[in-house]
């Protein structure tokens, strides 16, 4: 079934279901513990550590673990999910798996992941950007400090990347933390004009495929004149959104759903072009590279260029 992804501020029913689905995934247990993830890291020879308390983890925590472990797999360019061409297809696969799991716990095959149009908020006065409806009790809760109001006050962070170390920590459970607009040098969200630069860029990506090139992917990821666009949203929200365990903040999925929508709009304009092609560029970023997958089968960028069988965007 093809579902329609909408702006979270445009449909309160979708918003309520999203928050409830996140809460259910954070509540759901599969008998998997922090020790199991430590053993997983060792068994798969990942170059990272896991320390901290022993505890049973939720399905939501596994999405956090999936993201941060993919980030820890270094490739000749970037890692298995970021800093290179793989960024957009990997997150499309990842979001689709998250959407499928929300549909499962909500028992609603028609549910679609919502997006947050942060470029629209980027047009507001800088002092109003963190005071919008999105950061109210009825939506995501506090933009600054500990999230103590609304549905997301029930969400607990259990896995956090150690910013000084080389791995993750199974922490004593605590609420999500934010510091929107408080990061030095990043007081505001990206603007429509900055977004348009990414949409106007004709090449998906180009040699040397790194975070220094001028390409649609690199501008949208936010390295070009960065932190910009996607990266800037992570930095602007701050705290949990600033770490490799950023999916701990459900705002992560709203940000990436909008990033995916921008990519979809770009493909509608410029064609479903991806680079590097087979046999070109760094392994792990090619159109036929198997992407790192924990929940669900591994896909390639080629597999996700057409998303119509899964979802479409409103007004895209």
């Amino acid at each position: 079934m093809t579902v329609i992804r909408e702006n979270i501020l445009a449909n309160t029913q979708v918003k309520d279901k999203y928050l409830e689905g996140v809460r259910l995934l954070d509540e759901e247990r599969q008998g998997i513990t922090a020790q199991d993830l430590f053993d997983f890291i060792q068994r798969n020879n990942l170059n990272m550590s896991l320390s901290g308390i022993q505890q049973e983890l939720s399905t939501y925590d596994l999405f956090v673990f999936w993201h941060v472990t993919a980030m820890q797999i270094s490739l000749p360019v970037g890692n298995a999910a970021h800093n290179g061409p793989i960024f957009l297809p990997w997150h499309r696969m990842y979001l689709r798996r998250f959407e499928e799991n929300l549909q499962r716990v909500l028992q609603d095959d028609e549910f679609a992941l919502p997006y947050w149009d942060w470029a629209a908020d980027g047009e507001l006065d800088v002092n109003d950007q963190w005071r919008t409806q999105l950061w109210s009790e009825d939506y995501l809760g506090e933009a600054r400090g500990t999230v103590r109001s609304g549905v997301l006050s029930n969400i607990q962070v259990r896995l956090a990347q150690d910013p000084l170390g080389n791995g993750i920590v199974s922490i004593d459970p605590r609420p999500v933390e934010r510091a929107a607009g408080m990061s030095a040098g990043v007081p505001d969200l990206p603007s429509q004009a900055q977004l348009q630069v990414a949409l106007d860029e004709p090449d998906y990506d180009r040699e040397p495929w790194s975070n220094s090139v001028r390409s649609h992917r690199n501008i949208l990821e936010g390295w070009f004149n960065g932190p910009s666009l996607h990266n800037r949203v992570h930095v602007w929200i701050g705290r949990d959104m600033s770490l490799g365990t950023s999916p701990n903040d459900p705002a992560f999925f709203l940000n990436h759903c909008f990033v995916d929508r921008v990519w979809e709009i770009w493909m509608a304009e410029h064609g479903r072009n991806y680079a590097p092609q087979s046999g070109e560029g760094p392994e792990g970023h090619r159109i036929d590279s198997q992407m790192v997958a924990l929940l669900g089968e591994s896909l390639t960028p080629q597999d996700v260029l057409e998303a119509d069988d899964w979802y479409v965007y409103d007004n895209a």
Partner: protein
Amino acid sequence: MNDALPKDLKHIIKHKKDYVPDNYQSSDSGHSSHHGENSFSSERIVNYKGKKVVIETTYKVEIDGVPLQAHVAAADDGTVHCHGLPNYSFESATSLVKNLIDAEGLAKASKNEISKPCHNDNDKEHNDGNDRHHGHH
């Protein structure tokens, strides 16, 4: 209803060995560790007026005498990046380290109960001697 969650998820987590695809070429280049000291080197290559320019930058950061374990690198535009704060571009290493210290409190655990040899015989050899990965806690 969709079957989004594998029924054997626990089995997958406990036994999966092929998380990293076989043909992935990992790159730990630029990272050296000797006698508890960590340093990170990154290379920038620029072609300018027919000349190939190679700039190698090495960072060795200690905080209260403890080497920083998170990978640090210089980007082509001269900004400093770090795995510990993956979406940031810093104008200086000093600014980077201040932000890392500010974020440290997000990943505190009251105790470490994890990094002990597992008693599962099948996994024992993987866990023995792996405490070298636990640099900071």
